[in-house]
């Protein structure tokens, strides 16, 4: 059931966001080390000290560990929401709006582990998660589901592989301007098309880059945020959308899944939609997810996302500027900044709306639409605006 009720609208602010930058190799650092660096950085950027924090949430690293490590004297709310990171944004915003906490430190530590890269196994400290026996190959479970529905998409609309490539090339062109990005070397369509096939029809460059690193955010009331060092960014609405048939191989169709719910609900709860969005952040854990989001939010019709990107991209640079105005994943996205499970998308949205995105700054950007997550059990959307 979709409802327009949204008492939280513009009542919670993101006061700051910070990153460690990302590395596409196993490093000799732990997830805790990255989380600490990002958390300390965002507290300093905001002018806060650990005793100013009374709410804590993040992924991978338990909140209890983060609190002990950062010496936060007392918290009145904490949690470890699932990924992608809109779950963390939504949980922290709910905590602030309800009064469970006043100033929440929210972090995410992308980390190279066996679930996202087999090369992580070269580091013995990354091995403990891999126990027991490998599952059977005859499954569409997890990441494989996106490859499966990409096959259906190509079958249904007869689109060429280049349409997926436009997503990868946009990410790489934008990452060139982002010092935090893991993959910054130029990428051509020929190189994209000849990348190693992993699961047909998707190749290595259709899949996000496993990285080490962290992002962190301070989420609080607009009043408190105004007293801090950076311009507040208001959370207008947040939706974690899902339907009952959320198993990868039982999903009803290319159009009917969690993204449809996110779009219907987020539209109903927000004051602006794509015509009023200055920035667009579609998830790109797989290139196909971006094509699906572009169609779901209404930039174009079903099967038309590739043609839409072709018409809205600069051929020479590969960069997409929707309607000549709206950058798409200006930080490089998961495909090129790094597989941050959405935290990078939110960090960049905050920096753009604060006007501190450096060489990537979209002039005068005041609103952002962020649609993280995939299709089955983690489709999410958040609308943000500068206060």
């Amino acid at each position, binding site marked *: 059931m979709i409802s327009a009720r949204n008492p939280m609208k513009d009542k919670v602010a993101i006061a700051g966001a910070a990153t460690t930058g990302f590395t596409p190799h196993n490093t000799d650092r732990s997830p805790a080390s990255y989380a600490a660096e990002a958390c300390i950085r965002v507290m300093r950027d905001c002018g806060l000290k650990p005793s100013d924090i009374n709410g804590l949430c993040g992924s991978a690293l338990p909140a209890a560990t983060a609190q002990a490590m950062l010496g936060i004297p007392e918290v009145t709310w904490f949690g470890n929401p699932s990924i992608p990171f809109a779950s963390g944004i939504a949980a922290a915003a709910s905590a602030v709006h309800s009064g469970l906490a006043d100033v929440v430190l929210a972090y995410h530590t992308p980390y190279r582990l066996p679930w996202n890269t087999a090369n992580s196994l070269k580091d013995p400290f990354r091995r403990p998660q891999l126990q*027991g*026996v*490998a*599952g*059977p*190959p*005859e*499954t*569409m479970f997890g990441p*494989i589901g996106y*490859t*499966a*529905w990409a*096959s*259906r998409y190509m*079958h249904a609309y007869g689109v060429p592989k280049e349409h997926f490539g436009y997503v990868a090339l946009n990410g790489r062109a934008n990452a060139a301007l982002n010092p935090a990005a893991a993959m910054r070397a130029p990428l051509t369509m020929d190189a994209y098309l000849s990348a*190693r*096939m*992993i*699961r*047909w*029809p998707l190749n290595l460059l259709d899949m996000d880059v496993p990285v080490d690193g962290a992002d962190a955010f301070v989420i609080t009331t607009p009043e408190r945020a105004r007293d801090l060092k950076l311009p507040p960014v208001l959370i207008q609405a947040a939706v974690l959308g899902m339907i*009952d*048939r959320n*198993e990868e*191989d*039982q999903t*009803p169709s290319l159009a009917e899944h969690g993204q449809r719910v996110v779009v219907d609900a987020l539209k109903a709860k927000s004051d602006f939609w794509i015509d009023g969005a200055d920035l667009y952040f579609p998830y790109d854990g797989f290139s196909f997810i971006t094509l699906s989001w572009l169609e779901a939010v209404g930039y174009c019709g079903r099967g038309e996302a590739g043609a839409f990107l072709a018409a809205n991209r600069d051929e020479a640079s590969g960069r997409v500027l929707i309607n000549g105005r709206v950058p798409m994943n200006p930080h490089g996205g998961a495909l090129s900044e790094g597989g941050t499970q959405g935290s990078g998308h939110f960090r960049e949205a905050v920096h753009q709306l604060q006007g501190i995105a450096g060489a990537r700054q979209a002039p005068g950007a005041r609103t952002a639409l962020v649609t993280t997550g995939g299709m089955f059990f983690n489709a999410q959307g958040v609308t943000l605006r500068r206060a």
Partner: protein
Amino acid sequence: MDVSDEGLVRRFRGYALDHDNAAHFRGRLDRRLLLNRCGDCGQWRHPPRPICPGCLSPNVTPTAVAGDGTIHLAIFLHQGPPADGVDYAKPYPVVTVELDEQPGLRFTSTVIGAPKEAITIGRRVSLDWIERAGAPLPVFRLNDGSDR
């Protein structure tokens, strides 16, 4: 088949067995593909759950399907988990088949005995069985009937 829970887990190493899908795996030992069907509203649903999502009845019964259907999703693994008889040097097909029993009722496995070019979305298939690591595995074979 009359096999203990311990024995069932041993026969299907690598699968996540639980109380709700044990009957499905017991059916495999008899080379029967059992999917849950509601005894009250008649709806089929997979994977196995303790109740029917259509009418919330607990009266769900693992019931054999004929296994005829149409390929709905089709991918080819160039790498993947180690499995007996699977060599990823030749891209390994994994398909989701929409079964004739009910629109939207789907089962995922591989296709045997067909070249890659022939394994495409829309092709008709039928159920077959192979052995893997001492347990029967339900698979599909292209059906000579017309595409739909």
